[in-house]
C-alpha cells in the first residue's frame, strides 16, 4: 500500500512536510531585513566588552538571567524600557535566556557603579543575604586572555582594525587601573595585587554588563 512500503519515498515526503513550516517561519524571516533591523544608535561591542560577553557565555549566566524586557507594565516598571529588535543586531549568539532565576539584565548597564558589580560578584550573599547567585570572585583572579580578541571581532564583522582593538583594550586597562578610577577601592578589594595593573576577567565582565542597554538609554537621556 503506497508510501508505507517505500522507505525512501517516505523519508523524502517527511522531509518535505517538515520543511514547509521551517521555510515559512524560519528561513523566510532570515531573508527579511525587518526581522533583525539595524540602528545607528546601537554600536557593536568593544573588544573588551566582547571578551566579557564570552565569559558570560562560558559561565552560563544566561541560564539564570534573561536579556529581554517584555512590553508589560510591571516589567517596564521593574527593569526599564522594553527591548527593541535593533539592540541585538550584534548579538551572535543571542542571549535572551528562558528562565529568570535572577533578574533580567537587558537594562543593567549604568544602573549601578562598577564598584557595586565588583563587590556583588565577589560575594552576592554579602550584599543580599538570601540571594542564591553563585560567587564569581575567582574571575578577578584570572588575567583576561586577549590573544584572540582581534580575530573574534573580525569573525563577527565589527569592522575594527587590529590597532583599534589594541587601543580598546588599552583604554579599558587605563581606565580601571587609574588612581582616579571611581571604583578603585572595590576593584582592589577583589583583585589580587599581582593583577591590579592588568585587565582581569571580572573587569571584562563588568565592561560587558555596563554596556547592556546603554545605547538605548543614552538617546533617551538626550531627548
Amino acid at each position: 500500500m503506497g508510501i508505507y512500503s517505500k522507505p525512501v519515498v517516505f523519508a523524502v515526503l517527511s522531509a518535505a512536510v517538515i520543511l514547509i513550516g521551517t521555510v515559512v517561519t524560519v528561513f523566510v524571516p532570515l531573508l527579511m531585513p525587518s526581522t533583525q533591523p539595524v540602528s545607528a544608535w546601537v554600536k557593536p561591542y568593544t573588544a573588551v566588552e566582547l571578551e566579557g560577553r564570552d565569559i558570560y557565555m562560558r559561565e552560563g549566566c544566561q541560564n539564570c538571567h534573561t536579556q529581554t524586557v517584555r512590553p508589560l507594565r510591571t516589567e517596564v516598571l521593574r527593569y526599564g524600557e522594553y527591548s527593541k529588535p535593533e539592540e541585538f543586531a550584534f548579538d551572535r549568539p543571542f542571549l535572551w535566556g528562558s528562565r529568570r532565576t535572577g533578574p533580567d539584565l537587558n537594562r543593567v548597564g549604568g544602573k549601578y557603579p562598577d564598584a557595586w558589580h565588583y563587590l556583588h560578584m565577589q560575594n552576592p550573599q554579602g550584599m543580599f543575604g538570601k540571594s542564591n547567585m553563585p560567587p564569581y570572585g575567582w574571575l578577578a583572579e584570572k588575567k583576561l586572555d586577549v590573544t584572540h580578541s582581534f580575530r573574534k571581532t573580525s569573525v563577527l564583522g565589527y569592522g575594527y582594525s587590529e590597532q583599534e582593538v589594541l587601543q580598546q583594550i588599552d583604554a579599558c586597562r587605563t581606565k580601571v587601573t587609574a588612581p582616579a578610577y571611581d571604583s578603585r577601592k572595590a576593584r582592589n578589594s577583589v583583585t589580587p595585587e599581582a593583577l591590579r595593573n592588568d585587565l582581569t576577567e571580572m573587569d571584562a565582565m563588568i565592561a560587558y554588563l555596563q554596556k547592556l542597554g546603554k545605547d538605548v538609554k543614552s538617546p533617551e537621556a538626550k531627548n
Partner: protein
Amino acid sequence: MKETGYEYQIVRGFAFSALFWLIVGLLVGLWISVEMFTPALNLTPWLSFGRLRVVHTNGLGLGFGLAGIFATSYYMLQRLTRTPLPFPGLARAHLYLFNAAIALAALSLFAGFSTTKEYAELEWPLDIGVVILWVMFAVNVFAILIKRQEKQMYISLWYIIAMTVTVAVLYIVNNLEIPVTWNKSYSIYAGANDANVQWWYGHNIVGFIFTVPVLAMFYYFLPKASGLPIYSHRLSIVSFWALIFAYLWTGAHHLMLTPLPEWIQTVAIAFSIFLIAPSWGSVVNGYYTLQGNWDQMRSNYLVKFFILGVTFYGLQTIQGPTQGLRTLNAFFHYTDWVVGHVHMGTMGWVAMVISASFYYMIPRITGTQLYSIRLANLHFWLILVGQLLWTITMWIGGIQQGAMWKATSPDGSLMYDFLDSVTSLYPYYRLRFAAGVVYFAGILVFAWNLIMTVRQKPAEAEA
C-alpha cells in the same frame, strides 16, 4: 526465543549506556536543585550552577534520551522488518563513539565550552562528532528498511524515519557557526534571527527526540506488552502526518513578547493549539487499544507504565499550547511553571515509556525473565509519586513567582523586590529536592532490576 542473526548486543549496550547516563544526569540534577537554595554548593567554577545546568540537560537529553532511542530503535527496526542489522560493525562503532562523545561533551560543558544555545550547547568539534554519529545510525536505519523482509512498514518505523530526517535538519541548521579557536565559535545568525532559529530547533529537538521516537516505542511496545492490536491504523496515519507537519511552526511560542516579529509569534500560537489534535490522536489511540481490557492496568505491570506515560504526554500537550497563549505566557514565562512543564514530559512520559520498553526488551534479548516484577512495581510508584510531587511543586512555585512579579501597590508601584520573589521559592525548592530524591530512588530500583535480570542464567536452563 533467539532468532538467528539478530544483533542484540548493540541493543543491550545502548540500553545500559542509557541507564548509566540517566543516573549521572539525575545526580547532577539533584546537585543543582540544592544549589538553588544553598549557593554554598557552587564550590568551584566547574560546579557552579551556570555550567552544571547544561551538563544536566545534555546528559539526560543526549546521554539518556538518545541512548534509549538507539537501543529501542535498533531492536524495533530488526523486529519490524524481520531482518538482521545490515551493518553490525558500524552499529558497534556507533555505540562506542556515542559513549565517548557523551563523556567528552560532559567534560567540555564542565569546562565552560558552550555556545549557550539551549540543547545545542556543544562547541563545533563535538557538533561534527554528533553529525557523524547520526549518519552512522541513519545508514543502518535506511539499509535495514531497504533490505526488509516485511513489506509493510509499521507505525513505529514511520516515526523512526521522521526522527532520523528531522533531527539531522534541525541540528545542522541551528549549529551553523564560525570557529574562532578549537573550543570557541560564533553563531552565523544575529539577534532575533538567532533566537528564531534556536527556538525552532529547541522546540523541535524536544519534539523529535522526546516525542516522535517515544511514540515509536509506544506504538510498538504497548501492543506487544498487552497482546492487543493498536485501536486504529487510520487514526495513527492522520496523527503522524499532522504531528510532523504542525510541529515545525511552533518554536516561536518560546519567544512570546520578545523583539521577534509579532507575526511569527502569532503563527506559532495558532499551530501550537492545532498540535493538540494529533497529540491526542495518539493518546486516544493508546486508550482505545485497551478498550475492554482495562484490567491489564492491574494485572500487567508494563501496561501501567505505558498508559500513565501517555497520559502525561496528553496533559503535557494541553499544558504546552495553553501556556503559549500570549496572555498566559506573559504570566508564566521565565518562571518555574515552565520547568515543571518540561519535567512532566521527561520524568513522566519519556522515562516511563523507556522504562517499560526496556523491561519488555531486555529479558527477551538476553533469554531471561525479568528479575523482579515486584521491584518493577516499586519503581513505577516511586517515579510516579516523585514526578507528580516534583512538577506540582514547580507549578505552584511558578504561579507564586509570576504573581509576585506582577503585583503592584495601590499607588501603582511594584509590591515586591525581585529578591523577594526568589526567597519565597526556597521552601518549594526544598520540596522539589525531596521529590527528586524519591524519583532517583525509583530509577536506582530500575537499574538494579535490569542489572540483576541480565546477570541471571538464561531462562532455557530453568525450563
